């Protein structure tokens, strides 16, 4: 039977892509323990990796003196995650839709779309250097055509 007690944690990690491995493993293990489905685990895994890579590469610009803070709370109904970098932030509204026209053939720009598609709540803070995401247990994602509202 899945544990009912909520788990909360705050982790500060270095600005390097491999630094996400341990926190990610930790979060996904708690999800499995609390009875989240494979689809839920896949969705959160994808969003975690994309959000963290954005924070390291575009936020902190790989600056080793900067850090990324990961806060998460997992209860039997949902996973809530905040990832914040120390960069100057950005406006997600300015990121072009990668599904439209010639953007479809550009190699970059699909991370935000995937995060917004796989998480039920996906929003940036005002400065644009922190993302807040929620995935509810066993709630299907919208049809692909409806995804992508960031």
């Amino acid at each position, binding site marked *: 039977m899945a544990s009912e007690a909520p788990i909360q944690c705050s982790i500060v990690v270095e600005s390097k892509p491999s630094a996400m491995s341990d926190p990610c493993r930790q979060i996904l293990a708690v999800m499995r323990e609390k009875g989240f489905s494979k689809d839920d685990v896949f969705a959160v895994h*994808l969003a975690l*990796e994309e959000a963290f890579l954005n924070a390291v590469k575009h936020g902190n610009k790989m600056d080793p003196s900067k850090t990324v803070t990961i806060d998460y709370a997992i209860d039997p109904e949902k996973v809530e995650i905040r990832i914040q970098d120390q960069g100057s932030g950005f406006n997600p509204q300015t990121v072009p839709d990668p599904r439209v026209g010639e953007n479809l*053939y550009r190699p970059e720009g699909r991370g935000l779309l995937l995060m917004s*598609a796989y998480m039920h709540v996906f929003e940036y803070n005002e400065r644009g250097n922190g993302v807040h995401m929620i995935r509810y247990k066993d709630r299907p994602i919208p049809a*692909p055509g409806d995804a992508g509202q960031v």
Partner: protein
Amino acid sequence: MAAIQPRVSVEYREGATVVAFTDDKILEDTDVRALRESVEAVIEQAGGLHLVLDFRHVRFLSSAVLGLLIRISKRVSEQGGQLKLCNIHPGIYEVFKITRLTNVFEIYEDVNSATQSFSDRQ
């Protein structure tokens, strides 16, 4: 460090070159870069290449891998070749659908149907 790099296996079948990604997760920039080098080496060896990328082992990938596939597709096309994808796990296929890359790539159920599709066009 070579042991942690993603690997590819290459097989030649019915006039096509089948490149299988052998890692189940492709995430970091270093993974993607190593894959790009491996696949580009195959592409450079032959013009007019019939290339099949086999995803049978892949259970997880990042958006950077999607970018890599776009790059590979362009490179194959520049060389006068054709690219097909196959054996994509349902979870990964969903990623292709969300990003509408199902409109960009020809995706087949398995290696046989992918290789067969080249001869169907000739």
